[in-house]
């Protein structure tokens, strides 16, 4: 549609509007404030709703309410605020409700700092709230991808009737890049027609709930959820860079994947046979691609902006086929491509 120069946060906000998001609920927290600020200007004048909620908890529960009405809606926050949203996310997963949650994550645990970190990988990918559920997790590595994946997050949330999280970080949120926007999508009034609440009218009333007390019903629902997660494997996305002839494949996601790509490019020029696999969906995880590479005899190394979270999924994926080394960059400062050169070379020659 048009080419614009924006911050990652604004790209997400624009992506949401263009994808037909009609309601946004949020609460101020750094480093994601550009998202609510943008949407507070844009949504109300285009027939949508913007609410600065009293808390992260309330914002997530407003998302639950909007989702039950079949309306495309979003909330965003950063790590400590995302912890507060977990209650509603669990209820949404338990009630088969769609909704998009953006985490522009920062350093933790606790209040941590406001700099970038990937310390929320486990929280995003393994559940976060109570109960045996998953959310679909998308990890953009560029501002363009932040825009595109926001678009797709809404489609996935409604297709699977499940919460979808966009997991970015302070680097992505605050970085400016040119992006191409898409033709805005009008809200599809039919996508939720078979289940949304709108008043019963002439049909029989609908109940949306997560409470399942009748004998066998909770077990069946948990089974249905697992089948949904297996079905979602067809949504697996990843990027491979120079993997075909690589001896060592580095696995890294999000902004770190982007930074590692620069490192790989430089090391290649120096003749080192390294490549990159960047998972774009963190759940479902690109295990098949990793297994293919492992069967080709590749060696692996996982790099994260934490002390080792995704590496567990990498190791599980290639278990019995290959091993993965690990290098963790501590939170509190911004990694550069040079920071990863020595660890990668050490892994390559070790």
């Amino acid at each position, binding site marked *: 549609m048009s080419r614009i120069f924006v911050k990652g946060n604004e790209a997400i906000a624009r992506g949401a509007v263009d994808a037909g998001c009609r309601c946004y609920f949020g609460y101020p927290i750094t480093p994601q404030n550009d998202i609510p600020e943008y949407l507070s200007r844009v949504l109300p004048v285009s027939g949508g*709703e913007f609410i600065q909620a009293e808390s992260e908890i309330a914002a997530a529960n407003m998302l639950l*309410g909007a989702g039950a*009405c079949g309306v495309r809606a979003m909330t965003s926050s950063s790590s400590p605020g995302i912890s507060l949203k977990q209650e509603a996310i669990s209820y949404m997963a338990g009630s088969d409700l769609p909704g998009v949650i953006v985490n522009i994550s920062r350093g933790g645990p606790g209040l941590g700092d406001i700099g970038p970190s990937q310390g929320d990988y486990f929280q995003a990918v393994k559940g976060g709230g109570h109960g045996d559920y998953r959310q679909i997790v998308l990890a953009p590595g560029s501002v363009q991808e932040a825009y595109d994946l926001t678009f797709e997050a809404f489609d996935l949330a409604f297709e699977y009737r499940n919460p979808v999280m966009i997991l970015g970080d302070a680097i992505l949120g605050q970085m400016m890049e040119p992006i191409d926007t898409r033709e805005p999508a009008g809200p599809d009034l039919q996508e939720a027609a078979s289940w949304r609440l*709108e008043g019963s009218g002439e049909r029989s009333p609908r109940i949306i709930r997560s409470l399942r007390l009748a004998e066998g019903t909770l077990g069946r629902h948990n089974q249905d959820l697992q089948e949904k997660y297996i079905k979602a494997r067809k949504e697996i996305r990843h990027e491979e860079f120079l993997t075909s002839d690589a001896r060592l494949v580095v696995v890294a996601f999000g902004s770190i994947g982007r930074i590692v790509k620069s490192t790989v490019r430089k090391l290649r020029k120096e003749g080192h046979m390294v490549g990159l696999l960047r998972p774009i969906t963190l759940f479902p995880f690109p295990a098949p691609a990793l297994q293919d590479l492992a069967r080709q005899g590749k060696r692996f190394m996982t790099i994260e902006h934490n002390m080792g979270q995704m590496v567990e999924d990498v190791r599980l994926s290639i278990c019995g086929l290959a091993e993965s080394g690990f290098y963790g960059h501590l939170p509190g400062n911004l990694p550069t491509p040079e920071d990863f050169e020595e660890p990668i070379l050490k892994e390559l020659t070790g």
Partner: protein
Amino acid sequence: MQEVLAYKSPDILADVPTHFCPGCHHGIVHKMLASGLEDAGLAQKSICVAAIGCGAFIYNYVLVDTLEAPHGRAPAVATGVKRSSPDSLVLVYQGDGDLASIGLAEIMHAANRGEKITVVYVNNTVYGMTGGQMAPTTMLGQKTTTTPLGRQSGSDGYPMQMTEIMSRLQGVSFAARVAVNNIKNLKKAQKALRRAFEVQEQGLGFGFVEFLAACPTNWRMNALDANARVDNEMIPCFPLGIHKDVAGEAQ
């Protein structure tokens, strides 16, 4: 002989055995809601947000589109519902532990924003479903399973008077406290509820109706004694009446 219809149960009130204890007032409030919605022609456009506690099962009795909210969050959930579906009548059904304790932030701010929803608040002074623990509304001296010697203001604070608090918020258009322990109170309650629905239908703002309710099981009383307690102890602590009706006052 000509048959005269003397009584008809509301169509949207499910004809099923109740799970509520003998003497519990939830069933009376449910029926009042069902007839109130039906008589006003609102049932088919209603979305009810159910909360956590004994009232959570309202969807088994009042047959309208219903959504379950996490504990205390019903006013936030209802905010999302009303903003997404502005033509629906949005009804919230919460107990006192849910609304006045864990959900205090959500009720205060939904009210303060003047959300065009109707909150039905059932206050029986205890956590009923979990076995009768102290609630924020437990009266001074009242014995519960967690105030075995009776609620003491020095350590446990005071009963929260939510209708009075709501009345002070500018976003609130209608706030009333009613009881259903006798026919006279029941009639007034019906009227207040009808008015609360009107306030929402006319887009005037936030409506709040507090029902004083008996919980004979957790009060360790029979139904008659529990009804009497509403008169003798609850009403003096939680005064009945229309506490605020902005549009009504203006008329």
